[in-house]
């Protein structure tokens, strides 16, 4: 056997010397040596990395690395940086009168975006993700407002809440005409029928006529003689097609029987004044702001 047997005749390249099936040989194409050194360098780098950064778990903790890097700390720092960046806007919003925020484009943008975030965290549970509301929880997108839809009204509602016990709360409740036996079920039915006439949905003219007198005596004080409501008392407009508790006769009768007095918490102290301003700007901009 000569040395030349280790050279593949077709390619002229040395083989590894192993032979399979009598004639299959493996060409030995050597890797450049620097490639090997590069590989060693990556191992050295890996060891260095393990020393510098957190790497290995121990039974109760982990190796922290000599650089003291920690992702939790990095996140905390990032958040702190973000908060510091927000500070100048929050200060400016706090100092700017509420109805003038929209005149400064950057403040208005910040207030809308910040308000949306705060709304998602604190308000969407009741009012819905987009402010669309639900039965008993007002829709904030439409142009119908129980307590007023100006910026100042919205701000006041957020600060004091509704029937929340806060000193500045909006605090009127509808009497329980049925439960407290102020009206009989028949009278309640008639009154409900009359309420439906206000928005053109009544089908029983005789009952509505009887109900008109009951309405004038019992309801007009808050809802107004024509039923258009009174925002100072949170009394809804009964002439529009928007119903907080449903607009069918059974819903209206139930409302008269049990009274209504939904509760919204006061955000005074839970959110700082600048945040409440941002929230007011956001809700005002949802489409129904006045």
């Amino acid at each position, binding site marked *: 056997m000569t040395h030349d047997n*280790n050279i593949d005749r077709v390619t002229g390249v040395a083989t590894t010397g192993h032979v399979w099936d009598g004639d299959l040989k493996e060409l030995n194409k050597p890797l*450049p*040596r*620097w490639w090997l050194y590069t590989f060693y360098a990556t191992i050295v780098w890996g060891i260095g990395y393990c020393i510098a950064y957190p790497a290995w778990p121990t039974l109760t903790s982990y190796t922290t690395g000599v650089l003291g890097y920690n992702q939790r700390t990095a996140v905390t720092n990032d958040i702190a940086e973000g908060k510091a960046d927000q500070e100048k806007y929050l200060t400016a919003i706090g100092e700017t009168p509420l109805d003038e925020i929209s005149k400064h484009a950057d403040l208005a943008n910040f207030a809308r975006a910040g308000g949306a975030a705060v709304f998602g965290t604190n308000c969407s549970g009741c009012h*819905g993700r987009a402010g669309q509301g639900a039965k008993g929880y007002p829709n904030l997108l439409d142009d119908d407002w129980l307590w007023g839809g100006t910026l100042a009204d919205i701000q006041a509602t957020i600060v004091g809440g509704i029937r929340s016990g806060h000193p500045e709360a909006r605090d009127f409740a509808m009497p329980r005409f049925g439960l407290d036996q102020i009206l009989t079920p028949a009278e309640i039915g008639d009154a409900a029928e009359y309420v439906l006439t206000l928005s053109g949905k009544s089908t029983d003219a005789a009952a509505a006529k009887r109900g008109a007198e009951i309405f004038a005596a019992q309801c007009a004080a808050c809802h107004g003689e024509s039923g258009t409501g009174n925002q100072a008392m949170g009394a809804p407009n009964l002439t529009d097609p928007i119903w907080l508790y449903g607009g069918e006769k059974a819903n209206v009768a139930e409302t008269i029987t049990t009274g209504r007095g939904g509760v919204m918490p006061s955000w005074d102290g839970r959110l700082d004044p600048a945040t409440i301003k941002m929230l007011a700007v956001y809700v005002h901009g949802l489409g129904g702001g006045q």
Partner: protein
Amino acid sequence: MHTPKHDNQFIIDDGVPQAVDVTAVNRRADRNLYATRQKIYPKLVHGSFRRIKWGLLFATLGIYYMIPWVRWERGPGMPTQAVLLDMEHERFFLFGLEIWPQEFYFVTGLLVLAALSLYLVTALAGRVWCGYFCPQTVWTDLMVAVERFWQGDRSERIRLDKEPWGARKLYKKSMTHASWLLIAMATGGAFVFYFADAPTLAGQLLTGTAPEPAYIFIAILTFTTYLLGGIAREQVCIYMCPWPRIQGAMIDKDSFLVSYRDGRGEPRGPMQKHAAVQTNGDCIDCKACIAVCPMGIDIRDGAQMECIQCALCIDACNDIMAKINRPRNLIGYATIAGLAAELNGQTSPPRLARPRTMLYAGLIAVVGLIMLAALQARSTLELNVLADRNPLFVRLKDGGIRNGYTLRISNKTQATKVFQIKLENLDGAHLALEPQENATTPSITVPPDAVSDVRAFVSMPPSALKIFNTDAHPFQLVVEDPAGGTESRRGASFRMPKP
């Protein structure tokens, strides 16, 4: 006593064990899994291809270094740099063209064109890219020239490397590496100017006040240029680059490649000056082609992956052929078909137009035309509409229905624009914007080169609602520049309760 002879028994002659005629098939020396690099000392060559390569070296490096300093007037507040990749503001400026991130397909198109051009050139003339234009080739060429300047040509460099270390060697070597590092730094330094205003950044770099990424990228490119161009050289082409392995797919028998005419050259051997009958070919085996090769190969072995087809061996061989009074181009650009024809004493006319090259040229034309058309159709005003999905519509107290949309308006001009927004194909509807700028004509002011979002509330009074017998009515939102006449429109759907 007779001992049976076994195969494995050593032959003993006169009481002395004799050597067996065997070689270890797996000798340690033959088991080299790693090849140590053999240094290449390319010799200086003169000739037409060398001149072309010098010219291209100055041209390509000149373009690379000078482009960031070319100015381009774009209007107040806009960058004045002709080519600027502005990462911070997400804009690419290419002379008169400004590319927004969503228009990155222009860059993709340019890259597709570049790839197709590469295929076409490779099909026509082999690895023209590798041999003349590739940054690795150009910078290596420059680094070799610098090395030659400090250490002399091939034989002097070989001698110097064999010398023991002394003041002279130390001086020559350190000057070479210092020059390489300077070139490498200038390379990295020029690179960062593509990403920021060059004069400003140059001033910041001189005063040490440039942003941190500038220094990091200069350091990275200094290192890679020094390493790849100065030290690694041919190792990059042979072991790191995928292109040598791919380009074989573009080459056929009609591609012009740097070739050795073995029919004419072989059998190689010394000149037979005084012989009556010439038995040797034209190749006198002077090895000039090997000495000048930056890849350290022998072109006479034929086409090979390691050959970048820089054509320097053509210059070297032509020089020799002239001296021994033989025809030029023993090594020259030739096609495989042409070489085969020459062997039979025929000529094969070059076939430049063949299905492969026609396909590549056709694709270049098609992509180029698409790009041109896209550039022509590029609008400076763009409207995007995102309809509210939660809720789809809002019931108003007058019984009407309101839909909400977020309009995103891109002003790609360099002037502040006041755009008017209109509804089309939605009779009786009312449009209001939040924030509201102008109560009578809904309009929005968009700063130059910027995108503005605005909320659009489209409400339909109950009287207008009655005419629809559907829960979704298609209409058009139109944004127009009352001054310039440009407009952009988007289809949208007005949602309402099922009738």
